[in-house]
């Protein structure tokens, strides 16, 4: 596991549900075919209403037209991030678009679990609301040893909750690697 994650911020509000992360009409593409799965990157976060996409300004596309990867590597959310459906296409599309970490006040549990068990990216919890502090495009650094998030653009640092017991799965890579290391399934 990397100790530091750096990238530009893409800021969203509360209750970003899985239909906003990846609208249901796109759930038809293969996740195992590397070429076809790029479609998920292309449509990642495309269901977010335009005015709420990339706060505080809004109207910022997460992925530019014709691309499948985003210039934003860290997504900042409010409470209940990833609520709604159990579709693993949601964390998967964000990974395909290049997201390395999400920092939200809280998560819906299936999305949180999928992010970790599937090894898509690291879902971190902030101790305070950050969606009003950080602006889309700000340069951020996450320190996974100190559990802090530093906004390099604004020169401010915020504490994050530690990952707790799920860190074993994150360090292993995903639930399969974790189970192999623990002897639960043959390696």
């Amino acid at each position, binding site marked *: 596991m990397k100790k530091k994650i750096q990238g530009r911020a893409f800021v969203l509000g509360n209750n970003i549900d899985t239909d906003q992360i990846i609208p249901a009409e796109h759930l*038809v593409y293969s*996740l195992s075919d590397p070429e076809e799965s790029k479609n998920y990157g292309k449509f990642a976060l495309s*269901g977010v209403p335009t005015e709420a996409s990339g706060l505080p300004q809004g109207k910022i596309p997460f992925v530019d037209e014709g691309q499948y990867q985003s210039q934003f590597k860290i997504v900042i959310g409010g409470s209940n991030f990833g609520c709604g459906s*159990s*579709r693993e296409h949601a964390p998967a599309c964000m990974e395909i678009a290049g997201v390395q970490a999400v920092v939200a006040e809280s998560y819906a549990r299936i999305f949180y679990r999928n992010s970790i*068990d*599937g090894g898509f990216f690291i879902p971190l919890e902030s101790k305070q609301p950050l969606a009003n502090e950080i602006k889309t495009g700000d340069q951020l650094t996450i320190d996974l040893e100190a559990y802090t998030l530093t906004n390099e653009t604004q020169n401010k640092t915020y504490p994050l909750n530690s990952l707790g017991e799920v860190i074993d799965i994150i360090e292993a890579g995903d639930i399969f690697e974790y189970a192999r290391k623990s002897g639960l399934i043959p390696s």
Partner: protein
Amino acid sequence: MAMTITEKILASHAGKTSVAPGDNVWVDVDVLMTHDVCGPGTIGIFKKQFGQNARVWDAEKVVIIPDHYIFTADPHANRNIDIIREFAKEQKLPYYYDVGTENYKGVCHIALAQEGHNRPGEVLFGTDSHTCTSGAFGMFSTGIGNTDAAFILGTGKLWVKVPETMRFEWTGTFPPYIMAKDILLHVIGDIGCDGATYRTMEWAGDAVYNFSMEERMTLCNMAIEAGGKNAVIEADDVTYDYLKGRTDKKGTVHHSDPDAKYCFNKTYKADELEPVVAQPHSPDNRALARECKDVKLDRSYIGSCTGGKITDFIAAAEILNGEKVKIDTYIVPATVDVEQALRTETIDGKTLAQIFEDAGARIGEPSCAACLGGPKDTFGRTHGTEVVISTTNRNFPGRMGSKQSSVYLASPYTAAASALTGYVTDPREFIPARV
């Protein structure tokens, strides 16, 4: 140690005498359900992790129910059906309900119940967030992603953090114009979209036990809209009456101990509830139906695992009988069994289907249809700025297709009454005899 129903089920499946909230345990899985949207991804991961020739841990315990994107010309969606069909054949799965055959069922959560896959005391995981519906049978059931489902396919096990339990007790008697959907929308309005995150929602009280299995399923169905891990109702005679002829397995009935610990315990008075809606764009944006009487609608939609069962259509038909709808009204039976019931159940000598057709409503084929938008040619999907009243479960932006459309969630009574006026309407205006 005193335990709740959920704690007892998880303990028994983890080989322990007791568990407590917060414990991480590995449980043995009784049923894994998947469908056409998440099945292909699950199968892909299973083969990658366990090998191209790997066998599922127990073919009798895998249930595959295509239901999401069925009646569409979308080539990718149709390819996905081919993938699950091929997998079912390769693995010799006895419980694959194929599209285009007489074995096709429709919406997975209702089909699971109808086909006897929901049994008291068992553990069921499904690659769909509304898998919590099965908790109506006194079992543990919850939604998971493709990775966890692939892990189960290979091992028959999954890790679970034991949830705390919230208890919602309803005393008294619900008025005749109240449906399970009103109760849910009321409670979600109370606790919010994340009010039950990581928790169990346990429904109790005489008013709840008086409900049919279909209404109990509705009650458990939307636990996920409050963030809940699972919902549960103690199994009783109503449960076993429903199971007759559907399964030979007896299951195990668990009761919560009187001194079990709850993180939330609230008693509600059933008699006081009024018809409720969730306004756009969140299931916890509660209002009384009568408070929204000035909201002009373009469409009424009655369907889905939440509001497309036989009970739901009987309720809608009671209101629509002999009347004409003023707005586009879509009727989507959840399953083939429900569709058939539309042609056999009668009110005043007319079948439900006849009542709907005479009223000017359109009847679609059984599937998830527009509940979650879906491919562009999906029956009932929104494409513009439609304002919809719907018996479905979610109204976040874009859920029914178009980001610009607005969705009010309501009971079948309220959705049908609103179809007749073109405005959000308290159903009491149309069922005076029963009030």
